[in-house]
């Protein structure tokens, strides 16, 4: 404590909150400048993962500057006042660690994984680049080429990714989730120094950040180090409230076909606008998560039993739901038809299967099997504390609280079959859906 006071940090004297979630040694507290801290202990190996999550993602970007959140993420590996360009990563590597970063719709996160006694140095460098990057025009030009090649690699070279981009753009009428995280190419080409610095100065501040430290650490030690490095950075008093343009009522089912000669395996996908996990209000999301598992989670799921095994119309079928999201998310179904089955037949079979599932109600044995797997997943999760840390970071950066994260497993166990069917009835509104066919060129004429 004395060292951190000398360093100018006045730490909040909050007692640690121990997780009620079984055996996850989680401690959380908040620095005086508003930076939240999550510590997850695992003393089996002398390794630590240090992460800083910013509540700033692609959906927070100004109109016309798509991709700037991700562009800035790349630029944070350039120079600061005290570090040369590339020196942070080189220093991590010279200490036997590895580092990287990632950007999503709702957050941008930076991390290093390194021997536990290097935590002080990692915090020193990460705190430095929270406020002190120094970019050159050459950095901008070269790194813009790099992100364009990244878009080439991830998206332009991959018809499924291009199809997914069109699906999202059609799903969201007014929300920024309809714009790709990496950005639209024509806007990426125009990103400049001002775009990057403006985003940086607005969002990169301790009161907009979450520190997540996992591994062989003592929470008290993390508290002291965090105070020393992050606690001294003043909060940004002008941090804007996180308000985005929201979806209007969706009143028209949308359909699209994406044709590309590079498509080898056509498929049909359907997405629905869906509620996300909200602070203190996650019951619907828990029901939707179980719905996605029951419908399309694996070999025994309803869509696979029906379309793959019984009707032999599908090579695979699936469902997915991402509940961790600041604003409305999506629930998706897809069917990959077998040879000789058309996309229309596949779509019809999928719709019939979903209708039959709702009419029949949830099979209690199926639900119990999934709940058993979720309970076991909590045991397996303890083998990967970095995964536990990521779960907290993602949730806190997406508007949830520590309590929400800790209540989630019990909420999943408490969901009933009736609640799942009720959630399904609310979810599957054709007017809030997009149906997409990914096709080869030659099928256009069929």
């Amino acid at each position, binding site marked *: 404590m004395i060292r951190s006071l000398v360093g100018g940090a006045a730490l909040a004297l909050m007692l640690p909150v121990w997780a009620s979630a079984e055996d996850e040694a989680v401690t959380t507290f908040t620095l005086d400048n508003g930076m939240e801290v999550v510590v997850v202990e695992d003393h089996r190996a002398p390794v630590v993962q240090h992460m800083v999550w910013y509540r700033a993602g692609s959906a927070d970007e100004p109109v016309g500057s798509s991709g700037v959140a991700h562009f800035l993420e790349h630029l944070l590996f350039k120079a600061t006042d005290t570090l040369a360009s590339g020196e942070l990563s080189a220093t991590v590597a010279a200490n036997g660690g590895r580092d990287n970063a990632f950007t999503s719709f709702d957050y941008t996160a930076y991390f290093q994984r390194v021997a536990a006694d290097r935590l002080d140095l990692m915090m020193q460098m990460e705190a430095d680049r929270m406020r002190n990057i120094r970019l050159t025009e050459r950095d901008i030009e070269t790194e813009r080429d790099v992100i*364009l090649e990244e878009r*080439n690699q991830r998206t332009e070279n991959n018809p499924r990714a291009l199809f997914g981009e069109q699906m999202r753009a059609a799903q969201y009428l007014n929300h920024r989730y309809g714009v790709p995280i990496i950005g639209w190419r024509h806007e990426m080409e125009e990103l400049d120094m001002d775009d990057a610095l403006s985003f940086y100065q607005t969002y990169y501040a301790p009161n907009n950040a979450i520190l997540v430290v996992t591994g062989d650490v003592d929470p008290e030690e993390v508290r002291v180090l965090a105070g020393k490095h992050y606690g001294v950075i003043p909060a940004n008093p002008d941090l804007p409230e996180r308000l985005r343009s929201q979806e209007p009522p969706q009143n028209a089912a949308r359909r699209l076909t994406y044709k590309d000669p590079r498509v080898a*395996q056509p498929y049909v996908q359907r997405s629905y606008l869906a509620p996300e996990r909200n602070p203190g209000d996650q019951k619907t999301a828990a029901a939707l998560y179980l719905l996605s598992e029951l419908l399309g989670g694996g070999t025994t799921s309803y869509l696979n039993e029906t379309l793959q095994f019984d009707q032999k119309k599908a090579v695979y079928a699936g469902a997915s739901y991402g509940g961790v999201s600041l604003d409305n998310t999506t629930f998706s179904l897809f069917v990959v038809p077998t040879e000789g089955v058309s996309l229309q037949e596949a779509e019809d079979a999928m719709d019939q299967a979903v209708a039959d599932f709702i009419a029949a109600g949830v099979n209690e044995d199926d639900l119990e099997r999934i709940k058993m797997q979720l*309970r076991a997943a909590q045991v397996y999760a303890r083998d990967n504390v970095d995964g536990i840390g990521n779960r907290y970071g993602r949730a806190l950066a997406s508007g949830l609280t520590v309590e929400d994260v800790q209540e989630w497993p019990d909420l999943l166990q408490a969901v009933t079959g009736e609640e799942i069917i009720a959630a399904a009835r609310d979810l599957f509104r054709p007017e809030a859906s997009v149906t997409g066919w990914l096709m080869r060129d030659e099928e256009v004429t069929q």
Partner: protein
Amino acid sequence: MRAFLTTCLVLLLALPAWAEVEIKEVTSPKGIKAWLVEDHSIPFTALELRFRGGTSLDAPDKRGAVYLMTGLIEEGAGDLDARAYARELEALAASFDYDASDDTVSISAQFLSENRDEVADLLRKTLHQPRFDIDAVERVRAQVLSGLRSDAKNPNDIAGLAFSQMAYGDHPYGANGKGTIESVSALTRDDIIAAYEGVFARDRLFVGAVGDITAEELGILLDQLLADFPETGAPIPGKADVTIDGGVSVVEFDTPQSVALFGQRGIDRHDPEFFAAYILNQIMGGGSLESRLMREVREERGLTYGVYSYLVPKDLASVYMGSVASGNDRIAEAITVVRDQWADIAENGVTQKELDDAKTYLTGAYPLRFDGNSRIASILAGMQMDDLPIDYIATRNEKVNAVTLEDVNRVAGELLDPEGLHFTVVGKPVGLEG
């Protein structure tokens, strides 16, 4: 800052971080050997079973049999058809993952302590009584064919296959381990059974186990799962002749970004110079932003999102490979920069600082690999396949540190062959002939 770092490095080298991983060799009552790391802090066990041979065991007219068989292992066993089997496995909350590569078929299992006996019964049934029901064969065959059709339109897969065909010719390594549309379409249930009988045998088995299990319990489990396999299986093919000529070949494919796979002859895992080559590769293109290739191709010129090189010491051949992807109008320049770096290091070597940085990275990063039961079980099986001693983990960093600048630069001169480096490019590259 520099002075501070120096102090840290000294401390790091003195850290016996890997001392945590205590490996025991276990021999079961019926003579099955395994390496075990006991750790009772979380109530589950990870078990890794590996069988040497892999898709290379396929006969020339049965390409894809081992791969399809591996996909069918989880599609029903004993009295359980595919659907009943999947329900049973889910109810136990265990996971069995199967993989077939060109040298190995592996089974990675993870199971809770509370129902270990039931899981063992199911896994035994899986391994010894697979049903290979006709409807399951047809369903999984359709999945494999769907995957093959997708691979045929994926620039990375197209490049990988073209490069393998060039480098290994008629050896099994030169063929696609998943088979071809024609060969997979023609496989019969008898072919699947023959593949099963060829793959699973005791003379090619390697086992790693980590977690909440004692040596005695593991011994009983090993006998239950593995002792009834036959002593030997299908013959493993001989070594491949690696034929790689320098130059560029282009596979035309209409896509905005060209993918280039490059390679030359490699170095055997047991070659006395392997550690020097391993460090050399770390400096060349080992994955970090600091590598020569990443610095010159990405950081300096913005020509790519990622460029890497990697040693590929397989059981039956060794090559040195790399990859880069750039827009069609920029790939020619990226290739030139890669070849220039290859030539520069071959001729001028690396610097003492590059060597020191690579060593501190490799030695510091090594203990960070041992971060989870499944991960460690996989490493234990891999060490045995590589014929490494059981105390290897404790001595590995010394071997890295013993490599001198002279060693690395001598190996660079001998190994790196800028003239013999071949680039297989898939895309519509501008300014490249091949």
